[in-house]
């Protein structure tokens, strides 16, 4: 029986979020909180592996109390159990402190029911670093497999996992020992419209909620803002692209238009016959 834990994060929907033009920070009130889209795929993959091999899917998140909503979304996708670690002392964590806190929670979950596989999203859509997954793996001293695009095989008896890792020009097949950690691409699967029984389960579900005091062997200095060496010196919105011309038509027409524009640029080419 596999025990898979998906790490999930509640994020502001950056598709609709507005930047505060004065402070250049995200105005979080303008955006609804959603489940990090990559993490939905992490949970879905965990659910598919459970369907294939049997076992149990838990989800874990660190965040403020409303993050229960993100956990319920995961139950809709098909997760069995959810854990929220929430405490003022976690607040302001960078990726180092986040992965530290999550590792402590994973240790606690493992005590009850040993964890064979951890699945993270490729990255969060608000922090975008993609560091939390590998950070957890390093602390647990298990192999991190990033950019996972397909799971070929998980074999608990032989303690091995075989996956495809996405590369720029294809993929590579990698075998690892179990337990290990994947961070998954969005293309690994499609999250289907949740069936009604899952919706019903999610509506009634209450996750485990732990504070710092519920975790063991925690060094308070490594938590939250105190445990975060990252210094954000400046944040700015990318400038809106200006100028430019949109080429219309089919591909052939677009190529022709582009060529004729490029050829007219005297500074780029000298055409034979002209000086």
């Amino acid at each position, binding site marked *: 029986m596999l025990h898979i834990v998906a790490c999930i994060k509640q994020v502001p929907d950056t598709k609709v979020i507005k930047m505060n033009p004065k402070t250049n920070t995200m105005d979080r009130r303008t955006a609804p909180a959603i489940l990090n889209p990559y993490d939905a795929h992490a949970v879905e993959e965990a659910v598919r592996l459970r369907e294939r091999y049997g076992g149990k899917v838990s989800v874990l998140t660190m965040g403020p109390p409303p993050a229960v909503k993100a956990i319920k979304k995961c139950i809709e996708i098909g997760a069995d159990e959810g854990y929220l670690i929430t405490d003022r002392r976690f607040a302001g964590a960078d990726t180092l402190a986040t992965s530290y806190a999550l590792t402590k929670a994973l240790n606690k979950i493992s005590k009850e029911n040993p964890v064979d596989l951890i699945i993270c999203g490729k990255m969060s859509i608000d922090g975008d670093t993609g560091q939390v997954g590998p950070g957890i793996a390093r602390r647990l001293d298990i192999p991190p497999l990033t950019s996972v695009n397909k799971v070929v095989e998980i074999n608990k008896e032989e303690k091995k996992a075989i996956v495809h890792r996405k590369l720029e020009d294809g993929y590579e097949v990698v075998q690892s020992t179990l337990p290990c950690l994947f961070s998954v691409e969005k293309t690994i699967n499609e999250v289907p419209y*949740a*069936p*009604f029984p899952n*919706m*019903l389960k999610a509506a009634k579900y209450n996750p485990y909620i732990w504070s710092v005091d519920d975790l063991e062997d925690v060094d308070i200095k490594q938590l939250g803002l105190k445990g975060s060496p990252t210094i954000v010196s400046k944040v700015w919105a990318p400038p809106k692209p200006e100028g430019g011309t949109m080429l219309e038509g089919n591909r052939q027409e677009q190529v022709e238009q582009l060529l004729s524009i490029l050829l007219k640029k005297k500074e780029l080419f000298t055409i034979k016959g002209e000086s």
Partner: protein
Amino acid sequence: MSEKFDAIVVGAGPAGISCAHDLAKGGAHVLLLERGEYPGSKNVMGGVLYRKMMEDIIPEFYKEAPLERPIVEQKFMMMDKESAVTFSYKGMEWGKEPYNNFTVLRAKFDQWFADKAVQQGAILINETVVLECIVENGKVVGVRTDRPNGDVYADVVVLADGVNSLLAQSLGFHKEYRPDEVALATMEILKLDKKVIEDRFNLEDNQGCTIELFGDATKGILGTGFLYTNKDTLSIGVGTLLSGLIKHKIKPYELLEYVKSHPMIRTLIQGSEPQEYLAHLIPEGGYHSMGRIVGDGVIVIGDASQLVNAIHREGSNLAMTSGRLAAETILLAKEAGDFTEKTLDHYRVRLLDGFVGQDMKKYKDSTHHFDQNPHYFDQYIPMLNRAASQMFTVDGQSKWEKQKKIWKDLGSPKEKMKMARDMYRAWKVVK
């Protein structure tokens, strides 16, 4: 098969939430289904929420609910193209407990209200569309949702799916609306500084006013406009019968733009920023348009059963009361273990005997009457404006002369007779 419920309520608007709340409170196992991302996410209302009917469900709700402003002044503007005769009542008694009514933004309010139902034990599922009722041997036994494995069963299904209830329609409870039974309303939420709102509308801190607009607000088409104050936004909208829009070949948003640029309104909304644009239908056919509202294993409540008092812009309160009475009936039926139409009919009787039925009957002919007689809006209101202008313009003519002119403006003796008759008939239809 998934678990069975005592009741399934379809639609988390004021009607459905009220019903689910009271059912759960009474110990019933109740499922509330909503197609929106969350309750209120798709809901549109000017937004006056009436305190009394809400308190029948949650006493002293105003101490914690997300309300905008308690209303201390209600104005009625009879508008002509460049003028208006305004009638208003302002009373400070409305500014303190227990209050009369409040402006609300439904996206916030419905969510809070649904949470209260969940706290009572109702199970709320969002983002799920009910496609149809499951009928077995002529009895409604559950609903089919759009999700995989989406059939759910219950002793009774409450249809609270709002105006133009497709679910009640597919049971054959009512026909598709005629364009003269339903109004199309469009509205905008305009952002404006709190302090500016209070100065401009002559309000104390956190008090509000409502302005109802008649006549030229709808270019004389049967309908009304409104302008309500929220905390730091204004709600402005117009609604007219669909038949009127069709007849006058006018698009609803053109009407809204027209109101916004009207000289009586322009100055009130100056400097505000449009934040949201919404459109929705209002069932205005009244008592005559009400279809069947009870069947074996099924009850229809709120807008789905045509419960709107168009003359008084009341809808949410009728929805809540119908939800409450439906819950009461279902709890009785549960005790008796009988969910046939005969038992559930208790709801219809209670509804029609109470203020909801009384008001629906009182105004049963009003929409039709005003629709058939557009001159109330396109002739008499301008006339009233001309009379006021004549009377209050000081230009050296004697008041006696002025009265003569006003009298003449009313038309020939025959037209005057018609007008007197019209006033009497208007009085009769709303009497």
